[in-house]
């Protein structure tokens, strides 16, 4: 029982969130709204399926192509600042939403990347995100977009360095728990 709960704990968390949201939907528009929410979810999933396939393919091929020694040397704990900067660059350049970059981050994790490197990758994806740049400039205007970029520019490497320093040794535990 414990094992089942552990294995499906994330499923259960997501399910709980869905139930809460479905409850809110029900209170607003009855069963029709409940069904509509599920339907919209499936529709968006359908729209994003091509992106998902590309993301999973990229993650798989990366894992097969990149030798463990390369990851250890460039993105592992020993890589230090070099690894963190490299991860920032990669994160800033990779396009797509969380369902696209987390499979890739997961592939890096299981290939031996360090915690600071992974944090830097995800944070740079979220804050540097080159692919989001035109949209941010276009909709919010140059002043706001530029100031937002400037003020958050140093955060991905700094966060990577500090997390590596504070929690770096937790990476093996993280790797093991995901592989189970």
């Amino acid at each position: 029982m414990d094992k089942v709960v552990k294995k499906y704990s994330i499923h259960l968390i997501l399910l709980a969130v869905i139930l809460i949201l479905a409850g809110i939907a029900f209170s607003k528009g009855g069963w029709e709204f409940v069904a509509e929410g599920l339907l919209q979810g499936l529709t968006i999933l359908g729209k994003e399926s091509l992106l998902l396939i590309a993301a999973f393919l990229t993650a798989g091929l990366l894992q097969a192509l990149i030798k463990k020694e390369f990851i250890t040397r460039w993105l592992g704990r020993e890589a230090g600042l070099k690894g963190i900067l490299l991860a920032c660059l990669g994160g800033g350049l990779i396009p797509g939403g969380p369902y696209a970059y987390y499979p890739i981050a997961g592939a890096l994790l299981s290939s031996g990347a360090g915690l600071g490197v992974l944090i830097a990758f995800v944070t740079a994806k979220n804050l540097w995100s080159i692919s989001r740049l035109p949209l941010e400039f276009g909709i919010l205007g140059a002043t706001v977009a530029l100031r937002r970029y400037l003020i958050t520019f140093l955060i991905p490497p700094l966060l990577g360095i500090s997390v590596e320093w504070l929690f770096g040794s937790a990476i093996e535990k993280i790797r093991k728990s995901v592989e189970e």
Partner: protein
Amino acid sequence: MSSATIILWIIAAVLLVFSWRAGQETIKKGFKFAWKTTKQNALLIILAFFIVGYVNLLSPEELITSWIGPDSGWKGILSSEFLGMLLPGGPYVVFPIIDLLMQAGAGLAPVITLITSWSTQSLLTVSFELPFMGWRFSAIRWSVGLIIPLLTGFAAALIWR
């Protein structure tokens, strides 16, 4: 097709060429890894998209506009951090909402806090993060990151007052 999809397919194609040149074994391994990841996470992804569907349907834009008014000061920055966590969807959804807020008079500092918080602290994103990275990673990244949107907001308020 979105530009992100096209770029990601180009990356996948380049990797495919590299794998092909590295030998049949590598390609096979790549597909095997891809399939394994897909199988492991398919159900979770479907569940996460149901969440996206509900958030999309319940569209909380109006509620948000009532939260960050003009001259909201540090309270505005604080509510922006909280709102950013809940703000759903990608940039196509979120930037127009933020634009509306700016037209309604939201200041630069809360707006920068909001964008930063949505980027790094979004709870919807965490639901995609958990399956691939595990709860320990999410817990560390999310809790250490909590302070960042606030800091950027206060810094923006100081620099560009």
